[in-house]
C-alpha cells in the first residue's frame, strides 16, 4: 500500500480519465460498430429530410428544412447511441468485472463519469458523419473554430448525459431483456418531444411544455446555434449549457449511488 495522500478531487479526476482511457482502448479492436452506426443518421437526413424538405410542410423560418434538421439528426444519433450504452455494464455485471471494480478503492462517481465520457468520445464519429452528409446536401455550416469546438463539447456532454441516464436505468433493471424494453420505450418520446425535427412552435401546448423539460431540446438548440451559419439560438446558448451540465451532474450523482446495486 502506498502512503502518499491524494486529494479526493484529484483522485476523482485521475480515476475518471483512467476509466475513460481503458474504455477507449477497447475500441481499437472493433471498428465495425462505428460503420454500422453511420447508417441511421444517413437514412434520416437523406430520406426523411429530403422528403419533408420537398413537401414544405414544416415552417422553419428563414432556414431551409434540411439545415434545420441536420443538428437535430446529430442530436438524435447521439441519443440513440448513448441510450443503449448501459447494456455494457449489464454485460460486465454478468461477468465479474463490475464487482471487481467496485471492490477497488475507485470512487463510484469516477467509474460512472469515466464510462460516460468514453461514450461521449465514441459518439464523435456521429458528428463526422452528419457533417459530411450536411456538406454533401448543401447545408450552410458554420466553420469557425469556436463553433466547431462548441459542437465537439456539446456532443461529448450530451452523449455523457444520455449514456449516464442509460447506466442509471441499467442499475435499476439489471437484466438485458428489461433494459432493452425500457430503452425502446424511452427513446421515441425523448426524440419526438423535442425540437429535433420540427420547431416546438407547432406543438400543442402540453407537448411544448414537455419538450422544455426534455434535455434533448437544449442539446438540439445548442447544436443548431453552433452548427449552422447565422442561426440564432431560440433558448440561449448559456441556458442550453447550464441545463446540459446540471442534468449530467445530477445523473452522475444518481449513477454513483446506484452503481453498487450491480454487485448484489
Amino acid at each position: 500500500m502506498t502512503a502518499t495522500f491524494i486529494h479526493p478531487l484529484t483522485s476523482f479526476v485521475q480515476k475518471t480519465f483512467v476509466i475513460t482511457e481503458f474504455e477507449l482502448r477497447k475500441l481499437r479492436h472493433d471498428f465495425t460498430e462505428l460503420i454500422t452506426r453511420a447508417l441511421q443518421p444517413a437514412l434520416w437526413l437523406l430520406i426523411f429530410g429530403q422528403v419533408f424538405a420537398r413537401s414544405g410542410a414544416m415552417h422553419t423560418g428563414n432556414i431551409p428544412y434540411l439545415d434545420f434538421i441536420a443538428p437535430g439528426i446529430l442530436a438524435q444519433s447521439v441519443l440513440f447511441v448513448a441510450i443503449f450504452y448501459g447494456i455494457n455494464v449489464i454485460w460486465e455485471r454478468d461477468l465479474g468485472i463490475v464487482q471487481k471494480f467496485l471492490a477497488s478503492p475507485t470512487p463510484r462517481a469516477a467509474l460512472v463519469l469515466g464510462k460516460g465520457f468514453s461514450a461521449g468520445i465514441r459518439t464523435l464519429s456521429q458528428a463526422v458523419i452528419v457533417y459530411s452528409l450536411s456538406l454533401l446536401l448543401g447545408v450552410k455550416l458554420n466553420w469557425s473554430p469556436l463553433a466547431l469546438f462548441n459542437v465537439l463539447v456539446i456532443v461529448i456532454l450530451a452523449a455523457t448525459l444520455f449514456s449516464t441516464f442509460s447506466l442509471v436505468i441499467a442499475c435499476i433493471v439489471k437484466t438485458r431483456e428489461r433494459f432493452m424494453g425500457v430503452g425502446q420505450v424511452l427513446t421515441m418520446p425523448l426524440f419526438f418531444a423535442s425540437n429535433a425535427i420540427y420547431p416546438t412552435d407547432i406543438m400543442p401546448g402540453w407537448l411544448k411544455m414537455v419538450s422544455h423539460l426534455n434535455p434533448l431540446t437544449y442539446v438540439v438548440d445548442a447544436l443548431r446555434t453552433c452548427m449552422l451559419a447565422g442561426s440564432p439560438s431560440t433558448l440561449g446558448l448559456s441556458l442550453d449549457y447550464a441545463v446540459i451540465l446540471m442534468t449530467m451532474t445530477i445523473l452522475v450523482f444518481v449513477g454513483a449511488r446506484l452503481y453498487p446495486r450491480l454487485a448484489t
Partner: protein
Amino acid sequence: MVSSGNMSNLVLEIKNLTRRFGVFTAVDDLTLSVNAGEVFGLLGSNGAGKTTTIKMLTTLLPPTSGEARVAGFSITTQAVGVRRAIGYVPQAVSVDGSLTGYENLLIFAKLYDLPHREQQARIAEALDFMNLAADAKRLVGEYSGGMVRRLEIAQSTLHRPKVLFLDEPTVGLDPIARDAVWKHLIDMRANYGTTLFFTTHYLEEAESHCDRIAIMHQGKLDALGTCKELEASLGPGHTLNDVFVHYAGSALDTGNNFRAVSAERATAERLG
C-alpha cells in the same frame, strides 16, 4: 503505511455478521477470525451463504447486522480502507477480454495508485510470477481458462493486498490448470504473506491447501478447525468428505437459483 490502529495478528474479525434478503437469511450470525498469513477455506453446498459472506467482506454488500474488520478496517464505516487492503477474485470472469493482459494489469495499477515509476516493474513482476509474460500483449479474449484465472489473480494482487478473497477460484478448470493456479497462490502467500480466504466445492483442494476450514450450512457456521481436527471430531477413520456430509447434509443442490446456476455454467464454459 496507513495505520489501522490495530496491532493484533488477526486480519479478519467477523462478529455476528448477518445478511437477510427479505425473509430469507443468507448469512446468519457468523462469528469468525482469521490470522494473518493463513490459508482459509470456506466450504458449504450451494446457497450456504459463502458468496454472500465474501460480498460483505469485500464491501460489495452491506450487512443487515453485525460487523467485520478486515485488516483492521470496519466494512461498514471504513469501506475505502478495506478496499485498499484487499484483493478480490470473483467467481465469474473479471478481466476484460477486449483488452490485452498487460492493459488489464495497467488499469488496476492506476486505480490502486501505484506510484508511477513502480507500475511497469510491478506489472512485469506479476506477469512473470503468474507465468504470463509471453502473452502480455495478446488480447485476453484469446487466453485459456487457466491463463485467465492467473491473470485475475495477478490483477487482484498488484497492490500487494493483505487479504485476497477468492470465490471458487478453480471452478471450471481442468486438474492441471487447477494445480497451476494453486501453486501460484501458495507461492504468493510465501513471498508476500498474503492471507488467502476462499470458497470452494472441491474438498481435496481444501484438504491439501488450507490451514483451517469452516463449513457453512444454511447461512450458519457449522464447523471450524483444521482438517485433521474436524475429521477427528467425528471419531477415528473419518475423511473430510464425511465431515462435510455430517455438517452440510448430503444436499449439494439446495437454494441455488437459476441465475446462479447459469452464471456458474457460463463461467465454466468461458474458462474451459
